[in-house]
């Protein structure tokens, strides 16, 4: 079975009387070690799909299995455990805690995985160094550039050694040069064995992945291999 498997997955939002089918019967298989790009116009359901894969949300219908866990039957604690062990999520807006320094932000997932303090610090520093932030360990997000912030977020996503790395437009807030280094980093991680799923608007970026999936109105309308 593939690492990520969706069968007729739907996500329905209800806003007053109106029903919004953000995802409408999605079938998708992603194998371990794959590098997948998801493209599509704004509002097509890309983020919704990423949230489902990232175990931040559960589908309204259909079946969905991530890393062996059946998400249609998962409790809040199951989802937390999945996010803590299996998934690293990189957001467009970095989502760092402003009051913590680089090490503090990177070690956050380890706190909730009950890793002892010393070990936590060692692994956080190691992860920060691996994304090229070895000389910025004590800086706070406000003292870092956008590219550096996103690298902190990647280090945080990596620190628990998850199998799946997700990025929802991770370069959307970066200029193209820094975006390039961030993408280079993700490519490297994929080569090192991580399964990477990215949402992007940029066809150039999509072209670097192994699979491109196109969404429209909550449905997969096309799939290709660049």
């Amino acid at each position, binding site marked *: 079975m593939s690492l990520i498997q969706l069968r007729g997955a739907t996500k329905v939002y209800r806003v007053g009387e109106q029903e919004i089918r953000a995802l409408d019967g999605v079938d998708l298989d992603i194998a371990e070690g794959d590098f997948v790009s998801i493209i599509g116009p704004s509002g097509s359901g890309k983020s919704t799909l990423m949230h489902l894969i990232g175990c*931040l949300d559960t589908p309204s219908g259909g079946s969905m299995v991530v890393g062996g866990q059946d998400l249609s039957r998962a409790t809040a604690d199951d989802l937390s*455990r999945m996010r*803590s062990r299996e998934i690293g999520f990189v957001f467009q807006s970095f989502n760092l805690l402003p009051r913590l320094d680089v090490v503090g932000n990177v070690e*956050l997932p380890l706190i909730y995985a009950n890793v002892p303090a010393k070990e936590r610090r060692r692994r956080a520093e190691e992860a920060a160094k691996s994304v090229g932030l070895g000389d910025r360990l004590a800086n706070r997000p406000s003292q870092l550039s956008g590219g550096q912030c996103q690298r902190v977020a990647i280090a945080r996503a990596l620190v628990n050694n998850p199998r799946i790395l997700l990025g929802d437009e991770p370069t959307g807030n970066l200029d193209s040069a820094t975006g390039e280094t961030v993408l280079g980093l993700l490519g490297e991680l994929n080569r090192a064995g991580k399964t990477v799923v990215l949402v992007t608007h940029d066809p150039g970026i999509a072209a670097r992945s192994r699979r491109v999936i196109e969404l429209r109105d909550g449905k997969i309308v096309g799939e290709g291999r660049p």
Partner: protein
Amino acid sequence: MALRIGLGEIASHKFRSFLSMLGVVLGVSSLIATMALTRGIEEGMRTFMQQMGGLELVSVVPNEPGGLMFEFANLSPGRTLRDAVALKGAAGLVSHASPELEHPAVVSRGDGGGGERRRARGVFPDHFVIGMHGLEAGRFLTDLDVDRGTRCVVLGSSVASQLFPGTPVADVVGRTVRIGDSPFTVVGVLKLQEREEQARARKAGRKVPTYRWDPFRQKNESVLIPFSTMFHEFRSGDRSENATPALPGAPAKAEGAPNSMESIRLDTLTVRIGDLRHFRAALLQIRAVLDLTHRGVDDYDLETREDWFDRVESSVRAARLSGGLISAISLIVGGIGIMNIMLASISERVREIGIRLAVGARPRDIFRQILVESMLISFIGGMIGIVASLGLIEVLKLISPTENVPVLTLDGILFSVAFAVFAGLVSGIHPALKASRLDPITALRYE
């Protein structure tokens, strides 16, 4: 871990945290102060009661016999010397008995000077123990004095100094005083009895405080002579108030017949119980003996200090309760303050909570974190409250009467802080629940 996060959170919002602590600070300091205050009152009461005379004393007082007994009231001889003898002999739990006769008279020096109206009392040696007296000079009355009916007198401290001002007490012993017209030889002078603060002030050379109600005054104004001397000298002329049918074997007395020492009605009868642990049993024994000597007529009642102590204790308890209640209310208000600030801080931190959830925090981790923060705030507030209470107690010491100096106790401090932390816990539950129920995606989107 939650502790460290909580401390960081408090440290980074010092002013806000302080504001939310304020209520707890006030609550804890007033709670500690109230407890110290009531403890002080309690302690004051207790030393006072100790000085006053212990729980061991039981007064036998006359009482209107109730119901049917009224018809038979005349059967009873009333409180007499026989009661005292019987109690001491037959009630094993009674260690001392002090029957007393009184006689109001002018007491003056041998030369007739310094006369003042006093209440002379005829007593037995047991009176010394029951009155909790001490001797300043000379000796107390002995069994021999009572047997022989000697003309000896023991003076209370203030009587001695009033009659013989400036004379050392040792020299007062041996002098003559007159009770009415009869001369008596002073054989002893009793120790001055006073409250602790009075003694302290006297020692320090300060002005000795006086009290409107001074329970020691009567003791210091004692004029004590042997019971038998009292009877023969001053009271043998008394007529008995009613015909007292004789006890079996005793000669009958006609109405208005002169009293004997055995049958004269006592003015007071006080007994002392040897062992407080058997207080209840002792009361039963006393009743059993007196029922016999009074021929089953319940024309007496037993008055114990316990009733009085109970009243004092219950009023102290009431003071403690109302003080505690006020402080508890301020702590609850403090708790509500914490709750408000925690709720505000949560809506400020929705995004942070979203981030923590996204990286793997479980709802219960969030719950615990908010709860720990709220408890930390109240704990730190409690600590500040302790410091504040120390100041508050100093102020209270200045304004409270000397006998009720507030007493700070560890119990009080621990209880107050524990209560504060509990208030923090309770007021943290709602915000913590609210925070832990946030949906990660909604929380992450929150601006």
